[in-house]
């Protein structure tokens, strides 16, 4: 189960290294989104740390959706999906492998985007990096799990490209809420409202809940 998933993730990452069609687009997209949200908020006029945190999380979520649109693209284009479904592997491995690749893409994008965001908004000071990175990693896991699930559901839909964002965005609202709260906390801001588990604990809980739900329903994914 884990073996085939890792193999599939590796194929996707190698393909991406050769073709460079997803991560590069995601990078340009995340930069453009940050700039647009920045000007939309007129953040130059002193909108402060909260605006910076919001910009980062909004940009990450939209960029992740852009990446998800291509998540099963290689399989769908060459008819490889049918072969993959015929292969003696669990449906869960196909989903998990794709989610792992998505997670890899997101991390790759953030490795570039977050330092740039930091440089643009915090010449001095800035948030505590450790909780911020923890929140980003946990959120990436959740976005990859849920997003790949939605992408698998939307596979074969006539309106796949417009459908996927509509499916994914309501599902990731809790991630954005927890991520932004964790970022506020990284700025040293008090409060949150996530009770004893805190926003990071919440993100971990979210990942576990949707991992379990997706695992339980994965044999019904991806069609027949």
């Amino acid at each position, binding site marked *: 189960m884990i073996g085939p998933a890792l193999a599939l993730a590796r194929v996707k990452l190698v393909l991406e290294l050769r073709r460079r069609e997803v991560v590069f687009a995601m990078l340009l997209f995340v930069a453009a989104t940050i700039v647009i949200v920045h000007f939309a908020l007129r953040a130059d006029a002193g909108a402060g740390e909260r605006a910076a945190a919001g910009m980062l999380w909004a940009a990450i979520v939209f960029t992740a959706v852009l990446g998800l649109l291509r998540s099963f693209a290689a399989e769908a284009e060459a008819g490889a999906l049918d072969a993959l479904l015929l292969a003696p592997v669990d449906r869960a491995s196909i989903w998990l492998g794709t989610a792992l690749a998505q997670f890899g893409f997101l991390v790759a994008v953030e490795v570039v985007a977050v330092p740039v965001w930091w440089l643009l908004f915090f010449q001095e000071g800035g948030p505590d990096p450790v909780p911020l990175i923890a929140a980003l990693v946990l959120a990436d896991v959740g976005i990859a799990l849920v997003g790949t*699930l939605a992408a698998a*559901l*939307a596979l*074969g*839909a*006539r*309106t*796949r490209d*417009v*459908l996927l964002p*509509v*499916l994914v*965005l*309501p*599902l990731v*609202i*809790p991630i954005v*809420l*927890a991520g932004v*709260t964790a970022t506020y906390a990284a700025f040293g801001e008090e409060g*949150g*409202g*996530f*009770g004893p588990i805190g926003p990071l604990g*919440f993100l971990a*809980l*979210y990942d576990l*809940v*949707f991992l379990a*739900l997706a695992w339980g*329903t994965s044999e*019904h*994914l991806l*069609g*027949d």
Partner: protein
Amino acid sequence: MRALGRPSTTVPLILSLILVPLTVVLAFWWTGDDVDQGFSQKIFYLHVPVALASYAAFGYGAVCAALYLWRRDPEWDLRSYVGVHSGTIFGTLVLLTGPIWAKASWGVWWNWGDRQINVFLILFLYYCAYFMLRFSLDEGERRRSASAVYALLGVGLIPLSFLAVRIAETLIHPTVFTSSGAAMPDSFLVTFLVGLAGMLSLMALLMSVELRGKRAAARLVEYQRAARGEDA
């Protein structure tokens, strides 16, 4: 497919015809004005039962979705769809009556700090997308499975959204049902319960009517196929 039996429309029809008008009568002529909110509190007897009925319908849709994935009987898929559909219709009513009450009682149309309305909004957006997913897939096994999985995921989203939407510093959403019982006079409680029963009957009525229609449509497709000499 017919093994599950015909859902009754007579009983919910009679109940709704009695209970829904009765709620209006009780709300306007029996209960007094709320000490704090005055006349505007009357909308409580509509808004809250509609919201609870909407949650009940979403829950029903999710349960039927799970049963579909388990049993693979298309009837459960139809029931799941009908549940989500009715829940969304009632959800629209909740999102219309809520701001009216909010404006009268809090002075704003929408309060982003309130937990219940924001969770409801997330859930509503989520279940609206269900229809886009369902109707952009071709009729058949694939559509039924994908719809069922999506309807089931909502079960994870509801508690997580409740946890995530931050309790605002100002807890202004009226919390009438606390662990120590209902914080309102008996006449308010009775009217509310009548309203809730009325809304649930109305929901059951709408769902069984829609289910009948969907079944008839499915049968019609079967007959048309048979008439053309195709295998079903």
